């Protein structure tokens, strides 16, 4: 057999054997707790979700402040309570005690109609888990306290 033919055979054989040796990450909770908290506290149960999923580079960090909204730990609470949406006129981000009419709660939901054409948040990445969403709704419905 000619050397070039051997080389070609080796190459074809080798290419057929190539593969990736790892699986993709499967953690829809993003390393956060994935349980419904019935009586959530802002700093213990809600803020970790906001920091991990929203206050990241390019999104609601101090530098990027998409939709003029900064959700880092120091300012997240004041930034959302009774504050108007900068995207949809007339919407309020968090109405304490009224999750159903809080724009933040609507934005993280799957309800396309209620989102009025606005993309679901977090943008461009996996949705919050149903348990994480429920925890945030519970916090709003218990009056959205700064606790």
């Amino acid at each position: 057999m000619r050397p070039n033919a051997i080389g070609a055979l080796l190459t074809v054989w080798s290419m057929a054997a190539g593969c990736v040796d790892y699986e993709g990450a499967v953690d829809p909770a993003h390393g956060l707790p994935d349980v419904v908290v019935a009586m959530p506290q802002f700093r213990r149960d809600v803020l970790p979700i906001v920091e991990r999923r929203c206050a990241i580079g390019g999104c609601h960090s101090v530098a990027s402040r998409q939709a003029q909204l900064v959700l880092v730990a120091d300012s997240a609470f004041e930034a959302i309570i009774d504050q108007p949406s900068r995207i949809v006129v007339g919407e309020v981000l968090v109405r304490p005690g009224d999750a159903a009419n809080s724009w933040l709660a609507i934005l993280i939901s799957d309800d396309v109609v209620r989102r009025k054409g606005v993309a679901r948040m977090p943008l461009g990445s996996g949705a919050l888990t149903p348990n994480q969403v429920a925890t945030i709704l519970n916090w709003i419905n218990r009056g959205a306290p700064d606790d």
Partner: protein
Amino acid sequence: MAQERVIERHVFDEPEGRLLAFYSATMAFTPGGLTAGNGWSVGIEMSYVPFLNEAQRRPSLDKPEATNLVPFFPRPRLGVRFAGLYVEGSWIPPMRVFDVEANLLSGSISGVGWAMAGWHISPRVWGATGRVRGTITCAASAMVGKGADLETYYATVCHGRESDDWFEPRMLGAEAIAVRVLADGALRAYVGAGARVDRSRFDIGVLTGEGVRDPDHPILELRATRPHFTLGAGWHPRGRIATGAELFYAPGSVLTARATVRWSARP
């Protein structure tokens, strides 16, 4: 004051670490199918880069990154034997191939070694560094027209521009190569085992509306020391042309193949 870029360090077991380690492993500077030649030699190596599925391209379950840019990784090789050492180098000049522009430098030194039970065992050290540029984080082809969410992401987070992302392999490796000479010297089969220190980086190159890098996005850095293994053979019957192929296995990253053709100044 300008915002400083954050360097996010990731270990191998994190999704970001796995993705970084995968791409750096495909660029490891192994023998590539051929053991040391005679005198001067020049060659070209072709390495296969397996495509990643969507889940494998999701660091931390964020959107899948457009990393499947190049199915093959070509690398010229220049080698010389002197003073009992075999020194080999490679430089990929900044040319655009497929959808990436690579500017990579690699080098290795193989020692004299020793004979044992019909095998010749040589130590080998190598390094690889440089930069591969491509549009990975913000690729219009992967976002525009692919749904409202991704379009909004492209318009806002990506500032409506394609990104200029940099992958920078930064590796030092060492290995032992055991060679068995067969067929009256025409065939050299080898197995190798070694480890590499990997500090490769991925610079997220989201561009602002002004066309400068958005400092709000971090530079990801791998912090890992990983094993690897090679199995290959070189075929050099007569004349100046030799061919070779190699299987390269980096556990937890990739099993890939390399093929090399080389021309030697001396038969």
